[in-house]
């Protein structure tokens, strides 16, 4: 059994989503940069309309007109870039080069971080594809792309990749944020929908969450329109194309955009409104301890990326084998660590860990701070569990209050356990009669292999190394 199943049962019974966390496990900034999109059909690299802003009362909107025409799409993206670039790049102005502890690695550090808010994963994916499209555009030749457009592309592509790291906080995906903190009786697929989740969390009075979410989910939130939404857009696009008669001049096109803006603005405003509401709701909960600590990796990743962009370096569009090894390692470690961090930060999260018997919970029956093993000081506690445990003698566990210290299981009794502290100077110790929780999950990084050599070994040569970064516009340009 998992806690989520129990909470699903209760969500169904009570008609409202049930809280699956006591705190908020993401560090939320008061004024992140929201971006939402609407695409056209399944066009994979463009947006028909873009909404953005840092203020929930005001949404900037740019419509492309006909997004399949790049000379119409790019100006809309440039409008976004005008606000996005100063916000996203601002924190890098305070960058410093820092030397790690014990003369370790020199790396770049920033004081502040940007935070991007999007309604759902699909939006992030489409932003990433748009970024992938424009970041490698040529800046010379017959159709040079603007510097701003290329930087926007580089940032969007970076954010899409970075957002895959469990626990990162540069990007907040509103639907994930809600689904990570609430349990509904929606199935796995339905729970990807932000309007459905939001309606289940706060259904109208007297309406069951199930019905509220079904109603809210009727109209897509973007970026993928349904057939009806596109059916309404089609004559507008047709009229625009007739009106501009192949012209892509701003003064010709701009006056013709109003009907499309009227079509898309309410849709984008709805996406923005639900995203902001979701963010504010979670921000009302206390922030988890480790959320702030996790910022360090975001800082490093951000500074590294900004440094590359500012030096005009192009990133490959595919990873080298060495980068791919590192990437998978990063994803695995981040995933394990964030589970451990959330569990020690939040007793509700710990329930799943207790159920999978990777933790024990009980009353401290005795504490001996002067206990010794051989000649070493090894403070000892005994915890009464009231049930047998699967932990074994010799296993290393961590107290949820002081999770970076190590305890060792010294003895296992039928319904109790004895633990010794391996870091004898760690303070405080659990108190007698208090409830204490110990887990085998570790918030520390597991020992990991260093960066693999850039030159592939003989066994790995021959398989096609990724292509050099290149424009993916070639067909259109031709």
């Amino acid at each position, binding site marked *: *059994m*998992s*806690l*989520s*199943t*129990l*909470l*699903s*049962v*209760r969500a*169904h*019974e009570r008609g409202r989503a049930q809280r699956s966390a*006591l*705190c908020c496990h993401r560090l939320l900034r008061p004024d992140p940069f929201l971006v939402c999109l609407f695409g*056209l*059909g*399944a*066009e*994979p*690299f463009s947006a028909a309309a873009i909404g953005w802003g840092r203020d929930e009362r005001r949404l900037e909107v740019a419509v492309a007109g006909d997004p399949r025409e790049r000379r119409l799409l790019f100006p809309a993206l440039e409008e976004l870039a005008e606000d996005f670039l100063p916000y996203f790049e601002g924190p890098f102005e305070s960058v410093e080069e820092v030397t790690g502890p014990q003369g370790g690695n020199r790396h770049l550090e920033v004081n502040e971080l940007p935070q991007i808010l999007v309604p759902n994963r699909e939006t992030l994916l489409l932003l990433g*594809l748009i970024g*992938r*499209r424009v970041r490698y555009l040529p800046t010379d030749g017959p159709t040079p792309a603007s510097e701003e457009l290329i930087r926007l592309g580089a940032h969007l592509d970076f954010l899409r990749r970075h957002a895959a790291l469990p626990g990162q906080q540069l990007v907040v995906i509103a639907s994930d944020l809600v689904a990570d903190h609430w349990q509904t*009786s*929606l*199935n*796995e*697929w339905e*729970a990807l929908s932000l309007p459905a989740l939001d309606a289940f969390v706060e259904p109208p009075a007297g309406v069951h969450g*199930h019905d509220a979410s*079904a109603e809210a989910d009727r109209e897509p939130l973007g970026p993928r*329109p*349904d*057939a*009806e*939404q*596109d*059916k309404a857009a*089609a004559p507008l696009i047709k009229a625009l194309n007739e009106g501009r008669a192949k012209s892509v001049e701003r003064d010709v096109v701009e006056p013709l955009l109003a009907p499309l803006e009227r079509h898309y603005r309410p849709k984008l405003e709805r996406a923005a409104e639900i995203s902001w509401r979701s963010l504010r709701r979670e921000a009302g909960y*206390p922030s988890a*301890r480790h959320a702030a600590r996790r910022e360090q990796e975001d800082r490093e990743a951000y500074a590294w990326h900004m440094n590359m962009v500012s030096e005009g370096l192009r990133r490959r*569009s*595919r990873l080298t084998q060495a980068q791919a090894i590192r990437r998978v390692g990063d994803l695995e470690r981040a995933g394990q660590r964030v589970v451990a961090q959330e569990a020690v*930060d*939040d*007793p*509700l999260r*710990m*329930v799943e860990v*207790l*159920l999978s018997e990777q933790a024990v*919970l009980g009353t401290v029956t005795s504490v001996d701070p002067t206990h010794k093993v051989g000649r070493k000081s090894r403070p000892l506690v005994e915890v009464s569990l009231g049930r047998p445990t699967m932990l074994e003698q010799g296993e290393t566990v961590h107290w*949820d209050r002081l999770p970076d210290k190590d305890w060792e299981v010294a003895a296992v009794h039928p319904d109790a356990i004895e633990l010794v502290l391996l870091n004898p100077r760690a303070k405080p110790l659990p108190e007698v009669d208090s*409830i204490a929780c110990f887990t085998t999950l570790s918030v520390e990084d597991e020992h990991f292999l260093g960066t693999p050599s850039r030159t592939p070994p003989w066994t790995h040569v021959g398989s096609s190394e990724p292509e050099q970064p290149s424009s*993916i*516009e*070639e*067909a*259109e340009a*031709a």
Partner: protein
Amino acid sequence: MTPPAQRQGAAAPTVARLAGFANHGHCPTASLAFVEGYDLDRVLQGTVYGDPFGQSQFMFERGRMFERLVKQDAGDGHCRYGPLLELLRDRLGFDTPEARIVNLRQELGSDMEARARRTRLLLHEMAEGREGFANIIDGAVLQATVAGHPANYETDGLAFRLGGSLRVIEVKSFAVVDGKADPTALAAALDQGALYIHLVQLALEAEGLDPGLVSEDLVLITPRNVGLSPTLHEHGVTARIERIRRLLEAVPNATPGPSNGSGTARFAAVTRGHGRNAEQRIDAALSICDDIGNAYGPACQGCGLYRLCRDRAFRLGSPELAGERVARELVGVASLDRAAELARGDLPTPMEAPAAAALRRTADLHEEALTRGLP
């Protein structure tokens, strides 16, 4: 392509409907609709459970544009096939300077029977390597009998002879970016290609030719990256062909018992017409579910009855409503409502006992966590 104005109740088992059946074949209600020839995507149109039907016209346009580009269609159906031949030459070593291409769409238009006959003939010539055989057939039509309905399948891909084998080509407009395609879209394309390969195998067999002549590696042509410049991938689909074979075998057996003896199609009462109002149609659909059962689950996404069945699951409190994991963990418990009672400590029946014990333990830990509060 489905002929226009398909009469409800006789919808031909198109590729799309076969794929739908493959995804929902475990559901007796969906199977019945398939066998009776009703299109589930349309059957509830006009009721609260009817979803906007069909795909965005922009998606459709993109597909058509790409196919025209690959075949170098001047816009009048007359194709010169330049980009296609170039890909086949560069990637598969297909180096026939004077390739003979037969365009059945151009030649015979929408006369599917004639196209099917001509396809069989051309396959013969190809297979036997007769003088001047066609290298490429555009718009080949393959026939099969599915669920008792004779059906024509029009390959938007083409068959050609290369290195001693017949190859089936699928043209799809989803983009391959940095070597990757959307896994679901790709799977659907492969399934479609596998169906065509299987139909060619059957056609060859029916003509007394060796079905082994068809390669089980599908040739997939898609746009590369952002533009529409075509790229080619080969993909082995042997396991998918086996799945298609099972699918075609399973279809006639899908006829569920109770309804069919009467001779009238039960889904007739669900469709529009004869003064039926939306409520009556919904009731008719629900009573089919009640009588022969359905199999509500996450795979139902995309079925035309999805919203109806989902609401039905909600009214019944079915654990399946909340997803596979919940259903698996509540085995033995009839409903979510009953699970809630058990979590509160209601006495379980022997069948409920294992799940009930787990529910209570979880409820205890939940309670304990709330009491402990944040550190």
